[in-house]
């Protein structure tokens, strides 16, 4: 898949239109997506919400899992999303928001111009004739700004979980079509460690609004079973 991610520019992109749909070739190519704490209650009904280490920074990310192998997405079929829920960040594509490496406070809007949602004749315009942002673009940017804010809060909450030493490395072993397989590199919150926390730390987790998310994390783990069901259906169909 080819990409061309560039900063959105009112001159260069004055005549670009965007179809209001999902680009799953881009957003759905992996077996996971980062999540923000605000969407954890809904997402926990459908996906295992686990922690993984970012391979660039080693820092923990909270993610929704879509498959049991890398690049396996059991919620994409014929380029359609078959889940009832979807992490918000996947709906931003082909737009995106990023920070400059030298200035973490400065946010940039970017676009992947090679997405099939980008065209000259179909979809919503991004800029009007005066070169101003259209209402459509304004809404999309607003959604991404809100997301950035929520992502920052999420990062702080993960930091709290790490500081309280609640995570532990886990493997998920499963059998499919007679083959034994292993999903590693995954971290879960340890119920034992959580239960041993002193009262004031539990209170801190509750006040910061992360205790609820932790319980949604626990209940989300039941969805490993539905991932397995989806996988065996897919293999049965093949």
């Amino acid at each position, binding site marked *: 898949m080819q990409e061309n991610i560039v900063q959105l520019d009112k001159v260069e992109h004055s005549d670009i239109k965007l179809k209001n749909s999902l680009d799953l070739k881009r957003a759905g190519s992996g077996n996971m997506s980062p999540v923000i704490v605000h969407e954890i209650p809904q997402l926990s009904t459908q996906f295992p919400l686990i922690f993984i*280490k*970012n*391979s*660039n*920074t*080693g*820092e*923990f990310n909270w993610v929704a899992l879509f498959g049991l192998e890398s690049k396996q997405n059991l919620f994409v079929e014929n380029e359609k999303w078959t889940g009832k829920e979807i992490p918000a960040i996947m709906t931003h594509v082909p737009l995106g928001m990023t920070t400059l490496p030298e200035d973490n406070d400065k946010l940039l809007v970017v676009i992947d111009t090679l997405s099939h949602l980008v065209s000259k004749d179909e979809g919503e315009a991004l800029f009007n004739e005066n070169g101003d942002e259209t209402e459509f673009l304004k809404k999309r940017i607003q959604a991404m700004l809100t997301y950035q804010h929520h992502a920052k809060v999420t990062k702080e909450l993960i930091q709290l979980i*790490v500081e309280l*030493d609640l*995570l*532990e*490395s886990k493997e998920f072993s499963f059998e499919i079509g007679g083959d034994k397989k292993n999903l590693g*590199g995954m*971290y879960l919150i340890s119920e034992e460690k959580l239960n041993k926390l002193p009262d004031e730390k539990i209170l801190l987790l509750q006040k910061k609004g992360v205790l609820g998310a932790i319980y949604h994390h626990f209940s989300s783990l039941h969805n490993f079973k539905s991932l397995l069901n989806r996988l065996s259906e897919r293999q049965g169909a093949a």
Partner: protein
Amino acid sequence: MIKSIVIVGGGTAGWITANHLAVALGGAGKSSVQITLLESPDIPTVGVGEGTVPAMRNTLAHFGIRETDFLRECDATFKQSIKFVDWVHNPGASVNNFYHHVFDYPAIYPLNTVPYWLLEPNNLKFADAVSLQGKVCDAGLAPKMITHPEFQGVTEYAYHLDAGKFSQLLANNAVNKLGVKHVKANLTDVDIDESGDIQFVKTDRAGDLKGDLFVDCSGFNALLIDKKYKVKFIDQSQHLFVDTALAMQVPYQNPDDPIASHTIATAKQSGWIWDIGLSSRRGVGYVYSSQYTDDTSAEETLRNYVGGAASELQCRKISMKIGYREKFWVNNCVSIGLSQGFVEPLEATGLLLFDAAAKMLAELLPGHKQDMAKTSRLFNQRSTYTWKRVIDFIKMHYYLSQRDDSEFWIDNRKASSAPQSLLEALDLWHNRPPSEYDFFSRFEAFNLDNYLYVLYGMEFQTNMSGIAGRYTQAEKSQEFYRRFSQQFDELKTQLEPNRKLLGRIKKYGLQTC
């Protein structure tokens, strides 16, 4: 009851001892024992000893120090091996005149491949036949990834560190987290009672410090063990000839110059040069024998090694007395660090020995003063054993050399210069490879793995003729060699250069799980 301990000296040995004792005795606020460290504001620390061995990882974790903090604050880097250059043959005799003494344990389980390699070396260097770490080092790769938790990696590793900054980190940990009292003053006198025990030490600005136990960490000065108790020093210069060091701090030419993932020890005509890469600079030094060369030629050797960068740099001369004391614990006084003795830093023995001695003291410290004599006998016996074994191991690096390009090397290779215990061990290994039964103590400073890497890295000849018929799984051993080569090819794609990983850790930190 032993209720108060006074440590004299605030270098690395003093602070390592303070941390070990404080952890073992129960930590801040809860312990029934008060530890005080007396540091002279006027005497500079020696501050050499920038290499460590993997046991340092356990020590840091034991002290409750985060690996991230340690790496950031001590300009520390990862060390996976010592690369010995020009030790086996005269310089220029071959392009491959080096060997690695790596930290990964050689692959001797489930199949011990050592005898197979001895029977058929296959053009493989010994280290490459039993581990992949030599290749990892030569490729300049780090021993771990950013996703590895603290103190864990793909390969075994230790650190290079800035000794001054390390002392500072240990001091902060001991004082702020473990409740050690830090007194800055000069020791002026030592008061001994009729039984020979130290009652208190006098200081110039902090009054008298009373204690039940005194630890002499005052370095070469040995204020208590030598100046007060006059314990005999057992000179070892008949075995180990080097007695002087010239040290230099060499800045990197470019901020992103690679950092070697191993110590480089290059043998020269009258000694050897250490080359240690920290994140901020390199530490380079020539350790030589003043019997075989003079200071001017030694400095020239060092400057030639460093090259153009050396022209504006100063070097510092340190004189050393090689040997150890007859006793390390007398009455209620224990010596730890350079006050115990000194041996050239060829195998990172400095911090290794400080750490081992401090750990032993922390573990064996009796509760009552009347048990001190028994404990000191045990401590002295164990420490003497350790020193003797260390001397053997260091001497072996010289004794096995085939160099004959200077008197220094010719004399070093004479059997008359080697300790009897080394000659006896080598005599056994002339007809069979070393075995775990040759290293029966759990607390050997250097073990089977260390000996294997150095012996066979140095082309030591074991005559296999009497036992060759026992080794019937040659094909399987070939498979092991192939596996290392495959594993390395895979690892190469995952590991990144030392400096790159260190930069990432500076920025993001390592996770604890």
